[in-house]
């Protein structure tokens, strides 16, 4: 039973509801500190095990001669990582509940201290079942990951200031490029679904909880070891393959290569869990009256994202696993001389890799279309077309991946086919623009900071999307593939799209999540510097790519230096704008803490109808939804929902096929 309907149980996972918090001190209960201890012990054990198995010696049965000549035991490193993650999770207390249930004992909320709303600041450092806490954990985590990867980007642009004078050695430069790429592509997949999806989806659909709070929390707690393991590649010698980690180069690389392969695979697991949770929550936990035609567009976007995460991420995990076995236990999946194929890696990787970029794009679409009605005071134009766009993008994204391989020597019959499917995917993507433009028609646009980011999104994604059409055409792609043109294209769609939408979401929803407001003046400075800096950085890169500069190079033609210098300086401005944002965020949430009203944007969204921050279980009673969230300007429209439906009304409201919630709370 998805929801425990035993009368009186309102807590996730069942168990007797109790009001008293656990009596144990914060350091005696499992939390991040015990997780770290577990991780250290786990790594040491795994590393020892790997050495025992693989290093030839008098007591070892192994014949891994290659380890003796290479002076590196990748097997020990990888096993170390495996047990690190296991130790981390054990230390965090992830397994205590399942083990307890297996032993036939009852879960006690008091023991877990997982009662929603209890625990103060310490609960943010624990494995918690409260989706709102997980959302905030994700938000802080994502900011840390984004800024770390951003620092690497600043280092890249520093190196590219001169084609002849080198700040970093060529080896270090490739490490930096790889760290930036993997960190961004691996962690930013959850930059919106993690913080905003986990926090807001239940509130938006009128639910008191998510479907799988444990999976949700687990998905967050896996991001931290993934991040740290990725960084551990640097002291181990770094990896020199870029974020795509093509074999056989990745099989050839030194010990630092195990880090991104493992970290990305781990993050893949996190993606599956996070996506699956949101998917089931949206399908099964909608409040009565929350029909499919009324769910917010943000939720539609996350629905598409979740489907992609659940279906595509497992392939990533498989690909990373194969690369790791090639590196450690002498399989030959990707080594041509022994019957493997370098194409296998490319296909497995991009079969995930393409849906991955739509995992990055869809939440951005969702946020922007969610915010537009609020700041134009009009209904969302062509709601069904927008939903069709999300669904269309989701479905088609599985059919385009070979466009990354146009010049690789794939069967030439495939190329017109994939050119067609790639061109076709721009149709549902275009729906977002249709809906956005229609919503602006005769609107009353309020230029708040979130709205500025939404409008900038449209410009950025327009450029990004149109440049995508350029690369989808095979003859043009002959010049553009593997050059800075592609770089500019995907930075425009991912950073210009997703990250700008993320910023919009931050400014919009932080009052909801924390009850405080971010400084709007700093916000406007942040916006303008970021928008101008971003465009100034990436627009010239289209030209740089078309003029012949390949990706991931530390030297380039001398005549491209002026353009590269312009781009680097603009990148520093862009980095500075992010600094302003981080300062604003931290200062406003930690120091100033200026209280904000419950619904400062006057939004009709269901999440805004409860206090900010929301109470422990979101809603006193499961609401009955009476109309859609975008009914601005509609005369005599009913309120969004009835938050205190009288008992007995719910039974009557249950008629109809798409009401699945049965709880009577």
């Amino acid at each position: 039973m998805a929801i425990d309907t035993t009368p009186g149980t309102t807590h996730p996972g069942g168990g007797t509801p109790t009001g008293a918090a656990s009596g144990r001190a914060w350091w005696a209960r499992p939390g991040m500190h015990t997780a770290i201890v577990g991780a250290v012990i786990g790594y040491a054990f795994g590393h020892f095990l790997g050495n025992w198995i693989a290093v030839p010696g008098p007591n070892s049965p192994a014949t891994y001669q290659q380890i003796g000549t290479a002076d590196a035991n990748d097997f020990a490193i990888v096993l170390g990582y495996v047990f690190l993650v296991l130790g981390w999770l054990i230390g965090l207390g992830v397994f205590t509940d399942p083990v307890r249930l297996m032993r036939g004992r009852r879960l006690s909320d008091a023991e877990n201290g997982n009662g929603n709303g209890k625990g103060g600041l310490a609960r943010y450092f624990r494995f918690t079942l409260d989706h709102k806490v997980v959302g905030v954990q994700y938000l802080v985590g994502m900011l840390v990951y984004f800024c770390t990867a951003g620092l690497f980007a600043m280092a890249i642009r520093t190196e590219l200031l001169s084609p002849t004078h080198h700040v970093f050695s060529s080896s270090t430069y490739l490490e930096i490029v790889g760290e930036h790429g993997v960190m961004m592509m691996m962690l930013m997949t959850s930059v919106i679904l993690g913080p905003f999806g986990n926090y807001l989806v239940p509130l938006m659909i009128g639910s008191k909880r998510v479907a799988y709070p444990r999976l949700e929390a687990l998905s967050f707690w896996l991001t931290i070891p993934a991040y740290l393991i990725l960084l551990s590649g640097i002291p181990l010698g770094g990896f020199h393959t870029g974020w795509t980690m093509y074999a056989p180069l990745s099989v050839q690389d030194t010990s630092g290569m195990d880090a991104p392969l493992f970290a990305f695979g781990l993050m893949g697991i996190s993606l599956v869990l996070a996506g699956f949770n949101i998917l089931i929550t949206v399908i099964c936990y909608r409040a009565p009256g929350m029909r499919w035609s009324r769910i917010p567009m943000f939720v539609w976007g996350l629905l598409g994202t979740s489907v992609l995460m659940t279906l595509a991420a497992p392939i990533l995990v498989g690909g990373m696993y194969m690369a790791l076995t090639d590196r450690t236990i002498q399989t030959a999946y990707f080594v041509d001389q022994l019957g493997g194929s370098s194409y296998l890696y490319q296909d497995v990787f991009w079969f995930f890799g393409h849906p991955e970029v739509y995992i990055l794009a869809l939440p951005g679409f969702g946020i922007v279309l969610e915010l537009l009605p609020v700041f134009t005071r009009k209904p969302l134009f062509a709601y069904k077309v927008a939903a069709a766009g999300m669904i269309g993008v989701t479905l088609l994204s599985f059919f385009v991946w070979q466009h990354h391989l146009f010049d690789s020597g794939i069967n030439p019959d495939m190329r017109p086919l994939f050119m067609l499917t790639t061109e076709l995917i721009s149709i549902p993507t275009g729906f977002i623009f249709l809906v956005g433009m229609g919503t602006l028609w005769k609107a009353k646009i309020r230029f708040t900071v979130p709205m500025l980011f939404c409008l900038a999104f449209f410009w950025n994604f327009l450029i990004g999307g149109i440049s995508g059409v350029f690369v989808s055409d095979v003859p043009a792609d002959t010049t553009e593939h593997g050059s800075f043109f592609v770089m500019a294209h995907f930075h425009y769609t991912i950073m210009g799209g997703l990250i700008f939408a993320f910023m919009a979401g931050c400014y919009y929803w932080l009052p909801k999540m924390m009850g405080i407001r971010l400084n709007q003046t700093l916000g406007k400075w942040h916006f303008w510097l970021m928008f101008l800096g971003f465009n100034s950085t990436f627009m010239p890169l289209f030209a740089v790519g078309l003029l012949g500069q390949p990706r991931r190079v530390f030297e380039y033609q001398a005549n491209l230096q002026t353009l590269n210098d312009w781009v680097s300086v603009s990148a520093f401005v862009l980095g500075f704008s992010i600094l302003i944002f981080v300062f604003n965020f931290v200062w406003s949430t930690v120091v100033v803490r200026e209280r904000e009203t419950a619904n400062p944007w006057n939004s009709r969204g269901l999440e805004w109808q409860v206090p900010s921050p929301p109470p422990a279980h979101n809603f006193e009673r499961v609401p009955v939804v009476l109309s859609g969230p975008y009914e601005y300007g509609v005369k005599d429209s009913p309120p969004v929902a009835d938050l205190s439906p009288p008992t007995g009304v719910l039974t009557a409201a249950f008629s109809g096929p798409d009401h699945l919630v049965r709880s009577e709370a």
Partner: protein
Amino acid sequence: MSLPVRVGTLLFAFLAVVGGAIFVVIHFLLSGPPTVDYSAGVTPDQGHVVNVVMQEDAQNTVSNHPDWVSYFIQDPKTKQWVHTTLFKVPAGSTVHMTIYGYDGCTPLRNPVWGKVSGTIGNVEYINGTPTPVLDSWDSCSVAHTFRIPGIGLNVPVASPTSLTANNNLCGTSPCDPNAAKGAATYGPHTTVTFSFKTPMTPGSYFWQCMVPCGLGYLDGFGGPMQTLGFMTGEMEVVG
């Protein structure tokens, strides 16, 4: 928490983060092997001569990768062997290079690199004998190559004929070409000499080995082959 406590924590966290980042940058990202300077005190006029001395060993006892093959460069002033592959030469000069080859042979993945090119006379002198081409497969005579693609220089470094396995017979490395038999730093070696001209324009020219000697790595091109200070490096031309 009260306001001063919050501000204090924030400040502390900020300083920790900045400190950590600076540490990572300096310790991991900006560190690297030293550069041996053959251009110091040399006036960059035409036809000036510089003598560069290197050796390549099958193993080394000076790094945490003892089984990695490695080049060493001799410092011109102190005559000490430095574990690096980066060196500086003046522009527009003639470089007489001597390489002591201590390592055994491995065949080339592409036999075309057995041909000497880019040197004066297009030959190399192996123990004094001028040689234009080496067949690394037939006679297993090539240990490593010294190749600077940017100036078209390719020199296969011969391996001592008395070695039958890839083992460095020096007890410790870097080995000493002047050591007497029986000393710890003694080992059979070949002496390869050749000359080339450095270009007039200053710049950084990378050099690499073309022999797949990165044992334990796929195709023999990983590990030391892609790590500065072992089998690949940079020749910086200063003017």
